[in-house]
């Protein structure tokens, strides 16, 4: 059996993994970057639309362009890049962490490393998770799959599409399919407000006259061999659940149903390795250096929580690399941490624990509902005294799909309690 050793093993060669590998290499670690696909870049390779890199590079780039910047740097570095290689198992062994690998070129190989960075990204939610009834014909696909068929393979998976879910990928695909000559009958969203970024509603639907039907969902798929149509229905909220309004059903003819109904962090390797998970983010429990419940195992990007902007994904990769390198040269024990509390208006914060010894960090959060004229406040209590505000900023508008960030000052290390909340300012 071939054996490979590295200080840091990075699993996943998308934006999080590439940023992590580059940073760890810059910090002097020997790094192995393992990617299943033949190319680095992950899902960015099929993102031919722009809107990437605004924060990091100050300009509009396509996803593929953004990925290429990192891929070029990776290939120009001493990083051991292993594309076309799958990690079958991650476990703790006698000499650190052990990764079981296989790949056509790599062969079966055992990798040992001092630290691991999980950067497997996320996957799309599928039909059963939104309980669509009816038949199972050809022509029900997730938005990401449609994107791959059109942008990478060069094939159309239908002529007339209905899109369920107004998440960003669905919106991007509404425009893409239109530009490729398909008809988009409409975008249906079960929630009363859109799931994607405001700029995507404007640029992908409004500019092309594609209707967005809010508080409406797809109930049923028709057609035995190929999709022939779907039944849509308006929904109302009653007792915390959203139910179809009887009599509001409508048949919409289409040959393709595109599902853009959310993303789930891809954590099967993490779970099997025994990493503790956070039920709200779907990612591992993390500290502010992106370390999981297993010391030496870090997570970066969409595997840790689903981000809206790739720039943040790259940031978390670099942060995880700093954490991994710090771990290799420093304290390997369990660290004393303080958990920031998601207070009023906040659905979750990532990371969920802040190291008392090294607390300065960026905190990512999502709000529960749209707030105009919002004020984001971090408060803390010290020595049993009442909470005081230690960081705050004003935002003209905050919406659930858009992740917000806030920098934590180093004083949180001494706090008894830290709370993040969003109020109407």
């Amino acid at each position: 059996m071939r054996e490979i050793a590295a200080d840091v093993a990075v699993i996943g060669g998308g934006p999080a993994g590439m940023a992590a590998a580059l940073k760890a290499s810059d910090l002097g670690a020997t790094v192995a970057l393992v990617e299943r696909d033949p190319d680095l870049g992950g899902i960015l390779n099929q993102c031919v639309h722009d809107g990437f890199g605004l924060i990091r590079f100050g300009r509009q780039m396509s996803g593929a362009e953004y990925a290429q910047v990192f891929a070029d740097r990776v290939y120009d570095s001493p990083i051991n890049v292993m594309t076309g290689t799958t990690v079958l198992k991650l476990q703790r062994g006698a000499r650190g962490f052990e990764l079981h690998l296989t790949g056509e070129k790599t062969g079966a190989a055992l990798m040992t490393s001092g630290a691991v960075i999980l950067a497997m990204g996320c996957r799309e939610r599928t039909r059963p998770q939104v309980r669509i009834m009816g038949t199972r014909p050809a022509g029900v696909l997730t938005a990401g799959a449609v994107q791959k068929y059109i942008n990478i393979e060069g094939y159309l998976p239908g002529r007339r599409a209905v899109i369920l879910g107004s998440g960003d990928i669905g919106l991007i695909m509404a425009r893409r399919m239109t530009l490729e000559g398909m008809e988009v009958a409409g975008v249906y969203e079960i929630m009363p407000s859109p799931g994607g970024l405001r700029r995507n509603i404007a640029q992908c639907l409004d500019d092309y006259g594609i209707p967005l039907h809010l508080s409406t969902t797809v109930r049923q798929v028709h057609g035995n061999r190929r999709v022939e149509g779907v039944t849509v229905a308006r929904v109302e909220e009653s007792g915390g659940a959203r139910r179809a309004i009887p009599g509001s059903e409508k048949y919409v003819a289409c040959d393709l149903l595109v599902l853009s109904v959310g993303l789930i962090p891809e954590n099967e390797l993490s779970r099997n390795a025994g990493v503790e998970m956070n039920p709200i983010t779907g990612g591992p429990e993390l500290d502010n250096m992106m370390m999981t419940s297993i010391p030496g195992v870090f997570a970066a990007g969409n595997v840790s929580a689903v981000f809206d902007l790739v720039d943040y994904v790259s940031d978390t990769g670099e942060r995880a690399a700093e954490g991994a390198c710090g771990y290799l040269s420093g304290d390997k024990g369990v660290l004393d941490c303080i958990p920031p509390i998601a207070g009023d208006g906040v659905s979750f914060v990532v990371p969920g624990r802040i190291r008392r010894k090294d607390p300065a960090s960026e905190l990512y959060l999502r709000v529960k509902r749209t707030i105009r004229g919002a004020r984001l406040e971090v408060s803390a209590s010290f020595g049993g005294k009442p909470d005081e505000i230690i960081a705050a900023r004003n935002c003209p508008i905050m919406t659930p799909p858009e992740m917000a960030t806030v920098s934590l000052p180093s004083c949180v290390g001494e706090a008894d309690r830290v709370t993040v909340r969003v109020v109407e300012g």
Partner: protein
Amino acid sequence: MNVETIDGIAHISGDVSDWKSVVDLGHKLCKTPGVENVVIDRADARVRDIGRFRAMGDVDEADVVVIGGGISGCGIARELCAYDCGVLLLEKNSDISEGTTKANNGMIHSGYDSKHGSLKARLNVEGNALYDRWSRELGFAFNRTGSFVCGFDAEDEKIIGENFENGSKNGVPGIEMLDGDRAREIEPAISPDVAFALWTPSAGYVEPHEVALALMENAIRNCARLRLGCEVVGFDLSSDGESIERVITTQGCVRCAHVVNAAGLYADDIAEYAKDRFYSIHPRRGVLVIFDRLKRSVLRTYLGLAPKNYTKGGGPMMTPQGTMLWGPSAEETPDKEDLSVDEEGLGFVVDKGVKLLKDMDSSDMITYFAGNRASTFNEDFVICNSRRLDNFTHVAGIQSPGVASLPAIAGMACGLVVERRGYGRNKNFDPIRAVRPAFRDTDFGEIGAENVVCRCETVTEREIAEAIRGVVPATSLDAVKRRTRAGMGRCQGGFCGSRVLGILARELGCDPTEITVKGEGSNLLVSRTRPIGGACDA
């Protein structure tokens, strides 16, 4: 509706638009003394022009033609191979197992519930006992785990008591009534609300499409032949009307000495083509729910509720591949092709699972789908030689516990053919099918350089290519999925679908737009984005 009973067969005709009334009447008639089964004469029955198929002339011949590539047809074909006859199996779909077989929960029932004295009861207990040998010979997964029928109240207790009596008479080995605590000692996943249970240790489970494939592959190794995409549309009878001379199919005519009707949901149509219809199939739809592999250690055995209907439906169980499966439900439907899942069917399955299991909800559901059981109105198997034709054997009404009974069904059907035709033993018959373990089940020390295509179920490109080039070739995405599990996991093919499609196109030497999900008319891609587009290489 009009009813006329001729030779023990009740014929229902007239306005049969209210399907529930038809089904109720059919069941009631079968309880009448002297009525063996029920035929429905539907005014909307399809009449097909078969002239152009007959005009294709003879394209093939065989000693025995088996109609239907479901698990029954595959089993009968394999058993016939042990005799000195040439077997040809005709399947209308692009793959075997495309009908009822693919939507069966794989339960190998112990045989406690089939009414004592029925054919089902006998074949179930016999068939169950043969699974160890079949599994060894054919290399398919079979787990004999035992099953529970769980009771909550006095009504359940009465029904379960009756089942205990019935099962004891049927000869179910090890059948036992347990209190709730004793049941939970054996199966800790049982809900604390369960007060008592009927335990039958001989129950188990298989993957029905894996069994069908194993049978068909072994049959082909023993010189049976298979025609896929070959639908039977009629027969040419001899001039005296006493035997079948030729089977007319969509691929042309097949001369044969004997015909076995194992056409599942369409067995009544096939019988009608031979002017020998004495049963009607009334489809009973069942919804199945599959859970994420995360739930693999939740349950070990099978849990059911006290049966209160013609079918008890299915409860929670684990497939041999380690995924939790709930269902099926049981809902009468007039349409054989209607495989839609509705809230009622899904709700039935989910409610039952939640009721029976401790601390379980439906949040990790990864897919659900439906199949139709091929029931006749007397709700027993119909396995017999035709009374009108001297070379036609019926294997119809195979519904629960059909998979459990299969080895006995196949043996009995084979016996009927062999006895009638006088075939001797085939000395060269090799009952063994060698299988290579799946990549995911191979020790890390044993694996080689492989390209993993399906990440959820860990399926490699080699495995997919081998399935496509297999003895029974996989030519659609679903066919690849059934053989390898690629696309069967939690992402439901979101990541690997396009790669599997690319491998299919490469191996079959066709354009990606020709690749289907499940045969004709289910193409996944409609065209290239533009005349000179990208490639869809694997």
